[in-house]
Structures are given as C-alpha cells and as structure tokens.
C-alpha cells in the first residue's frame, strides 16, 4: 500500500488570509507631494506577504522572497504553548548542574560578553508536506527561515561557569508555558552554539524567543530553545518528550532519535505554483541549504530529472545558511518538470523521495524529510507541484 506521508491535522488547520484592500491612487505620482518621513516604515499596500498560520505554527512565504534574509515579521513560527510575554528587565538565565559555579545572568549581563553575529537558517524538523498539486513552497516547506543572529557564544558562558569533565550533555529550557526542554551534546557548545538576543540587527522577536534563544546552527528548529531561562549540564541526555515521543521517526523497524542536523535540501521557489511562465528565457530561482555546512553545488533539471545543469550560487555562500541559486532556462513551451538538487560540503546529495523510502522504509515519519521537489510545467506555462507517494 502507498505510504501516506503524515500531514498532521494540527499543522494543516490553516487560518484563511484576509483579502488585502488596495488604495485608490493618482495616475501621475509626479504631480502630488507624498507623505513625509515617519518613525517606522510600512509595506506598500500592493505588497502583502504573509505567513500562513495554523493553531501551532506559521509558515514563511518563501515564494515571495528574493533573497535569503527572512524579514523578522515573516519568520516561521512553531509554538508548543503560545508566545510568552517576557519583561526583559526581569529575565534571567541560570546555568547549573555539572559546573564549578552555578550562575544567574541577567539579559544585561549576557549583552556585556563578547558578541558574535552569524547568519544561518532555522528549520523545523517536521518541515515537509505533500498531497496535492496546488501547493506553494510555503505550503510544502515554509517552516524554514533565515536571520542574521547576534549574541554570545555558548562556550563563552560555559567558560564563565566552569564545566566539569563529566558533563557530556546539556539541557536547555524555555520559559514558555510548555517549559520546552531539549538535551544537546556538549560538543555543540564548544563548536558553534550561541545564545542570541538579536535578529536582523534588532532585538529578537517575541515569536522567536524574546529576549533570548539558543541558536544551534544546522540543528533542528525545536532544539533552538526559545525564551531560554535555564541550562543544566549533565552526564547523560534527559530523554525529554520532544526528543522521544516527538522529533523521532521510523527507520525500517526501529525509531531513530537524536537526529540533530537538517539534511541538505533545496527547492525551486520561482517558478512555482501558482505562478505562470512565459516562453523564452526564464530564470529558475530557489534556495538550498544544509545543516552540515556549506552548499557545495546546486543542480537544476528542466527535463524531469534526465539531465542536470549547474546553477549559479549567490555569494557569499555561508555555512548552514540558505543559499540562493539561479539558473537561466530557455523555455520553448513544452510541458516538462523542473527540479533542483543540492550537494553539501560533506558530499551528501539531496535524495529523491523514493531513495529516502528505500533507505528508511515506507513508514516515513514526516521528520527530517528532505526529498527533491519537482514542479510540473504545463504547455500553457501553468506551474503545479508534483506530489509524490511511495509505491
């Protein structure tokens, strides 16, 4: 029987978007003096990119974006008990457990440490939906976004408290109503984990963990604990609900847990449903990323996967970051399928859904899914998603 890829009912429960109201405007803008400067800018009324919210998540409109920084108000969301409202003057971070000196840091303390800025993506491990042709990139994998994050290296704080040799893991805990907890191997703290307080220059947004969140570049979204209030160092993992009953998935007759890195992935965001293409030169555009380092190359196929061509990568290519790719295609008007596939710096090539099913069995669980995404191009230029099932 064909495996049905899980489209969790909670994920699918979308709130319909409001219809934008367009202003009446003058024919010749050169004849009327416009409004002057303001404390805060607004979008043009003709541009209304929005997330697609359900009751527990909202998805980034990837097809509306032209580069890789996600405007903060369009960053995807995934909450387990809503967004807490936190007074930054009262918020503290406790680091304790297998340390020499358990310390409480105020937000002001944290900002005094040497700061670092890093651009990387955050992606929900459950970022895959399929099922029908009328799906946009936002619908399929809108649970990934990218920001320029600023904060302190977690290693700096660990150095401050003094870490025991016995510590092999650390628990990170949020101050939301789910008191979300995940356990992370300590090697990540000595590598590139950060505690961040800024996103795209300004204070981190409430949905993203204001005033501080854990940033684990390349690791699944849920581990990047938001509204962080506590870290406990430990000999062993805590086996929290989110690392056992959730964010785990069947691999043949076993259940795989502690998958941290998001596997390399790419998607064409233009052209995609519901856009239409014209005959002639079409620049195919999209994003590619890997939780294990840099994007090495992206290939595009315009003949349903028979042949593949190199796409251009937008510089600078950053590690564990959405990387924009572009490929010029001379479309003659024939029906076809277009696809992209990424290779990351470890040499991993993005698989097809069939290859994933072959490797993991047909009961694919919906977490850590990164199959190649195909778009169908119809004779008239219409673009449709190609939903695949496993035979």
């Amino acid at each position, binding site marked *: 029987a064909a495996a049905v890829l899980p489209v969790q*009912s909670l994920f699918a429960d979308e709130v319909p978007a409001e219809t934008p109201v367009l202003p009446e405007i003058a024919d010749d803008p050169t004849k009327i003096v416009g409004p002057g400067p303001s404390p805060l800018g607004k979008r043009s009324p003709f541009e209304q990119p929005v997330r697609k919210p359900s009751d527990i998540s909202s998805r980034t409109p990837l097809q509306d974006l032209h580069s890789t920084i996600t405007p903060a108000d369009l960053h995807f969301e995934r909450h*387990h*008990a809503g967004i807490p409202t936190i007074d930054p003057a009262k918020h503290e971070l*406790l*680091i304790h457990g297998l340390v020499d*000196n*358990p*310390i*409480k*840091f*105020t937000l002001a303390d*944290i900002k005094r440490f*040497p700061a*670092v*800025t*890093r651009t990387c993506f955050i992606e929900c491990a459950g970022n895959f939906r399929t099922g029908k042709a009328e799906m946009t990139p936002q619908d399929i994998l809108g649970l990934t976004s990218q920001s320029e994050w600023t904060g302190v*290296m977690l290693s*700096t704080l660990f*150095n*401050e408290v003094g870490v025991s040799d016995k510590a092999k893991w650390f*628990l990170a805990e949020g101050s939301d*109503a*789910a*008191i979300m907890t995940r356990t992370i191997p300590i*090697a*990540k703290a000595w*590598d*590139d984990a950060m505690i961040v307080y800024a996103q795209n220059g300004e204070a981190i947004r409430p949905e993203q963990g204001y005033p501080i969140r854990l940033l684990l570049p390349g690791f699944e979204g849920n581990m990047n604990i938001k509204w962080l*209030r*506590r870290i*406990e160092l430990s000999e*062993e993992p*805590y*086996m*929290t*609900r989110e690392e*056992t*009953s959730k964010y*785990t998935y069947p*691999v043949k*007759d*076993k*259940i*795989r*847990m502690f*998958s*941290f*890195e998001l596997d390399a992935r790419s998607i064409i965001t233009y052209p995609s449903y519901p856009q239409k293409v014209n005959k002639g030169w079409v620049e195919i555009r999209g994003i590619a990323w890997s939780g*294990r*380092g840099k994007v090495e190359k992206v290939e595009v196929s315009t003949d349903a996967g028979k042949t593949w061509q190199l796409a251009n990568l937008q510089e600078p290519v950053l*590690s564990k970051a959405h990387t924009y790719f572009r490929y010029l295609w001379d479309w003659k008007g024939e029906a076809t399928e277009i696809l992209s596939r990424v290779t*990351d710096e*470890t040499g*991993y*090539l993005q698989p097809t859904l069939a*290859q*994933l099913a*072959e*490797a*993991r069995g047909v009961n694919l669980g919906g977490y850590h899914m990164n199959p190649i995404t195909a778009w169908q191009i119809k004779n008239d230029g219409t673009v449709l998603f190609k939903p695949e099932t496993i035979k």
Partner: protein
Amino acid sequence: FIPSQGKKPLTDSLKRPAKFGFGRPATLQEIAAWDIDVRPDGKGLPAGQGDVKKGKLLYAQKCAICHGVDGTEKPGVKLPGNALVGDTLATSKPKTIGNYWPYATTLFDYMRRAMPYNLPGSLSNNEVYSITAYLLNANKIIKADVVLDAKNLPKIVMPAKKLFIMDDRKGGPEIK
C-alpha cells in the same frame, strides 16, 4: 554529529580574560525553584506517590476534555490533545505512550511541566504520580495496584524502549 572543524566564528580572543565576572552566583533555592527536570535514571523525581485509582479520577476531571474519555483515538473525533492510550504493539496506530514512549520518567517530567495545557504547572507531585500510574496502566504497562514513587517509576521498562536507536549519520554521500 561532527563539529565544524576550526571554522568557528571569530570572537574577541586576543585579550580575553580567564573570566569576565558577569552574572551572580545562583542560590540553591533559586536552582531548586526551576530545576524540575526528571532524568531516565530517576534524578529529579520528587518525594510523593500516586496510584491508578486516584489518577483515573484526576484524568476525568482535568484531562478527558482534551484527550478523550479514555485517552484512545475514536474514528471521526478530533480532539485538542493527542491520543494517550493505545496498545503496546510497535506497529499499531496511533503513536501513544504504550507504543512510542521509551521512558516512563519522560511522562512524569512532561506532564508536570506542561499539562493540563490550559493550567500548566498546576498539578501537585502526588497528582502527577497518580496520573502517570493511571496512564501507564491504561496502556497495559503496569498493574492496577501499583503505587508509583521516585523509586519504582524509573525502573519501569517501556515497551517502545527497544525500538529506539541513536542517529549515527555523520554526513557524506550515504542516504540513510
């Protein structure tokens, strides 16, 4: 996972002191107030106890409205909370405590911090022990007369435990 070798973002390392001295020592009381986690070896479990009977009553009062009268999935019924009760067969659907939770300690830890969803943190330790006992019994993991406490809870071997494996992928060309 494989840490990125030597490709760390720069920090100000030239003149960095041994310690910066920011922050203040956390008191034992402060730590205790927040340290609510429970580990598989039982570390973190509080004093107290609970039993299936009390748990059943508490479940009916505080949980059934979201998780269903008996915690099982009923065809055509969409509840706000997940199904909690099923059987212990690895192949059965849906995922429940019986077939998909590798550690009983996780149940205690999670319910104490996050449930009931509308009143998180409102259950006493004894109440959490009781509801844990009830749900483990409903999932056919413990007998109806077990009195759960910090001693015996970590000893429960969950049916799903044997299914769980650590991800051992390290990057590279293999699809796995």
